[in-house]
């Protein structure tokens, strides 16, 4: 079974999604445990893959035994395995969380929810394991279609938000597909390994330039890279809580992964950074994303909307690191993919908990909530520290590498952008935390007794929140370990 893990990680959730409908027809209650079980198995498989990669290097798996370029090849190296572990772990945690929150937000639709949820996981994992550019497109669409559906079932304004996302997402996917088409025209292959061997000889070709441009814009839309982010805030604000959490923490990261693959595996750094001045273009755009995302977040009243704009800024962090062209910044970017996945999951899960308990979504509704939900608010506090980048939380370490990387590249102004964005995050979270801890009804504290009754969310929701919060606090301490064992090997050659 071990040797089939690369394909099982896709096949299991795909089949499970279909089986889930049958199971649900028989007994509705089975959907939830089924989804949790499947995501847990997938997480186990991803760990297995990671271990295989760590001990034996890159895994090549030929689907159906067909040799490339005719067959589809799954290639798993350190970067893929890293992403797969993140996606499947968060997928599993959010699945556990979703039970009560979906019960409340989508009563009676659980069966269909979990089917689509599993499809989303299938799509995201598919993108991470495949070594074929067209196959990426297929999985990109699976995950996006699942995403459109999941977002559309949110609150009253969700259908419109989802519709916008469909339009933008489809344009993005088309661009990506056009890129694939152009490359196929000149190379006759879709396999990444083959492409990377053939393309350096074609670096003067206009067709290749065009393909590259389509790829970049397509992935930029998919990962909500500023200024192509406009679909994201509304979509993630109005989606069901669990969906916002999984989408915010993994979908943009997988988009970033595709960008890394295209820039540094399919094309080579020599092409992406030297023939085409991607470093400067992406650098300035990322700086704009960091600042604009943070500034826009400042103006939001809705908690999830504020987090969504922060996510736009965080995407800027990652792209900035990816496009600096040195190993320090790249390390920071990959580390930030992990850290940001945890922070975003934590933030959106907390927002979901608040919505579940208080049916509230505005920042002002958080007033005095630390008495009623002390642990949830502590989790929010932890995530906030990490977003600001206070050591020893995880956010500090990735930011450290990112800033060092920009200095190494001699780009001081980008280093300043990181700091400015951190400061803006501090202002925002101060506003939220002040509301949580220092406003609200004056309780009879002078008597000294415990005031408002503690009324936390159910354990299936609280558990995942705390797992994420502890992750945010503890992951940072293992940054060095993670870099040495995994991230070090993901840095492209030539950096």
């Amino acid at each position, binding site marked *: 079974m071990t040797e089939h893990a690369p394909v099982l990680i896709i096949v299991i959730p795909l089949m499970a999604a279909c089986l889930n409908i049958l199971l649900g027809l028989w007994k509705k209650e089975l959907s939830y445990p089924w989804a949790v079980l499947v995501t847990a198995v997938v997480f186990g498989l991803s760990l297995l893959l990671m271990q295989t990669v760590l001990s034996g290097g890159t895994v090549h798996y030929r689907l159906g035994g067909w040799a490339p370029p005719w067959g589809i090849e799954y290639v798993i190296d350190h970067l893929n395995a890293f992403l797969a572990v993140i996606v499947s772990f968060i997928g599993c945690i959010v699945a556990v969380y979703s039970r009560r929150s979906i019960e409340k937000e989508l009563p009676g639709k659980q069966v269909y929810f979990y089917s689509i949820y599993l499809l989303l996981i299938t799509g995201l994992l598919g993108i991470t394991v495949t070594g074929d550019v067209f196959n990426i497109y297929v999985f990109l669409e699976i995950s996006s279609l699942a995403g459109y559906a999941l977002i559309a079932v949110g609150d009253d304004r969700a259908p419109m938000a989802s519709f916008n996302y469909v339009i933008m997402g489809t344009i993005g996917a088309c661009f990506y597909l056009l890129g694939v088409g152009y490359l196929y025209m000149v190379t006759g292959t879709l396999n990444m390994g083959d492409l990377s061997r053939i393309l350096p000889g074609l670096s003067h070709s206009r067709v290749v330039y065009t393909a590259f441009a389509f790829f970049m814009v397509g992935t930029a839309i998919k990962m909500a890279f500023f200024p192509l982010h406009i679909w994201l805030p509304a979509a993630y604000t109005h989606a069901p809580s669990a969906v916002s959490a999984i989408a915010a923490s993994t979908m943009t990261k997988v988009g970033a992964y595709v960008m890394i693959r295209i820039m540094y595996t399919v094309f080579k750094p020599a092409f992406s950074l030297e023939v085409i001045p991607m470093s400067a273009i992406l650098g300035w755009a990322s700086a704009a994303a960091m600042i604009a995302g943070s500034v826009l977040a400042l103006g939001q009243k809705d908690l999830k909307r504020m987090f969504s704009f922060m996510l736009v800024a965080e995407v800027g962090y990652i792209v900035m690191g990816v496009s600096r062209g040195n190993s320090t910044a790249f390390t920071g970017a990959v580390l930030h993919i992990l850290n940001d996945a945890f922070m975003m999951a934590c933030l959106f899960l907390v927002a979901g908990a608040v919505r579940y308990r208080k049916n509230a979504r505005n920042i002002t509704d958080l007033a005095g909530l630390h008495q009623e939900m002390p642990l949830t608010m502590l989790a929010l506090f932890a995530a906030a520290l990490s977003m600001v*980048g206070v050591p020893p939380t995880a956010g500090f370490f990735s930011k450290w590498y990112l*800033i060092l990387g920009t200095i190494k590249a001699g780009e001081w102004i980008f280093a300043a952008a990181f*700091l400015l964005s951190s400061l803006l995050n501090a202002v925002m979270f101060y506003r939220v935390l002040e509301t949580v*801890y220092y406003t609200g009804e004056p309780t009879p504290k002078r008597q*000294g007794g415990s005031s408002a009754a503690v009324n936390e969310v159910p354990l299936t929701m609280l558990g995942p929140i705390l797992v994420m919060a502890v992750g945010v606090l503890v992951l940072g301490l293992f*940054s060095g370990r993670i870099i040495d064992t995994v991230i070090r090997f993901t840095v492209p050659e030539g950096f």
Partner: protein
Amino acid sequence: MDTVHSIQPVLVLATSLAAAILIMVTGDRNRNLREAWTLVAALLKFLIVLSMVPAVLDRTILECTLVSIAPGLTLQFRVDSLGLFFALAASFLWLVTSFYSIGYVRSQQEHAQTRYFACFAGAMSATMGVAFAGNLFTTFLFYEIITICTFPLVAHKETADAMAGGRRYLTYLLGTSVAFQLTAIVLTYSFAGTLEYADAGILAGRAPDSVLMVIFVLFIAGISKAAMMPFHSWLPAAMVAPTPVSALLHAVAVVKTGVFVVLRVVLHVFGVDLLGDLGLGTALVYFASFTIITASVIALRQDNLKRRLAYSTVSQLSYVILGAALLTPSSITGGIMHIALHAFGKITLFFAAGAIYVAAHKTEISQLNGIGKQMPFTMAAFTLGSLSMIGMPPLGGFLSKWWIALGAIEAKELLILIVIATSTILNAAYFLPILYAVFFKEPRLGQHGSAGEGIHEAPLLMVVPLMLTALGALALFFAPSVFLDLARGAVSAVMGGQ
């Protein structure tokens, strides 16, 4: 110099941290037990700090690496003379303040006492972290933790004023540290390739002069806990906090952390020689002098007692920086000594301000006429404290001023003598009128009410600590032994036994 592995620094941090957790667990249910944790931890911590003294005086460095997170980012403690000096002063004063705190919050029936004591313990744990930190990363980590732990103490009253003060506190401390200090640390790492403190500095010859100057300016601007102008206004704003907080945190732990980190940067990151070569020492001297004089002038105009003390602190903190910036052995000794000497004096003054508030509910200086008769012990201590601030022998404050003045002569900065003299006159100008009013003016009609007759002191738990610290300020003049030895040790380490 030997380096010995030791877990003592970790134990020091752990005692307060454990106390913070135990305090939270115990909560309001059993107040005596909760307060017992504070006292036990304070005592234990002081004893452990004390137990490190012989080894460090023997020129041994106690080292403990907790975790190496990534290249350059190591959580490491290194107890040297300078760090132990600070730790000793802070942990002793924490012990004293613990008693005072209990007396204060109980007699005031403050709300949220559990949060108060827990945050207090947390802040002290982090302060020890700064004192023992062996590199810039560890320092930065605990520097930020102090800010976060003390915010609930500053905003304790939860009134609009307190929240505004707290907001300013966070804005200045967190804002400058993220914007400037972190940048400086990143730059230091990218040029020096290390963040570990070294006696000769780590930046010499590693970067062009212009970059070094930028780094230095970023450091000085980023350490706003030192309350150098123009980053000082958080300190007066933080005076909305309960008085024990102002006393310990804003005369000892927080602000002294600031100047301590400045000392670290001056002595162990840049190094005396490099700063001298770049002429940055002189620049810092004039910056510090400006703060010394200006803050004293502002202090003259404050009627609120705690605000006057706060501006006095702003001014006195820059003495430490001045001493370090003069870059001579005597002046650095004086600067380091001033950390402890000023702490003893200023904490006495704050304690007295709190005692006056508890016993007579007075906060403004103009209300204090004749209160000396009502609170003789408190005001006697207050007198000692203010004389120490002015720098009058035989009080501790004299010593540090003396050494700094000597250093100014050694460095041929005669203008600085004028600064010191002016500042002394200004100090006298804002303290002596208080003393005069307190002892010799008649209370205005109906000012002290019926309690005007006879002695009416604050609770014993408050009066005894403030007498102790006042006597401490006196005793340090005659026997600055341990502190002086440690300060000399620190200086000889960086100056090569001069």
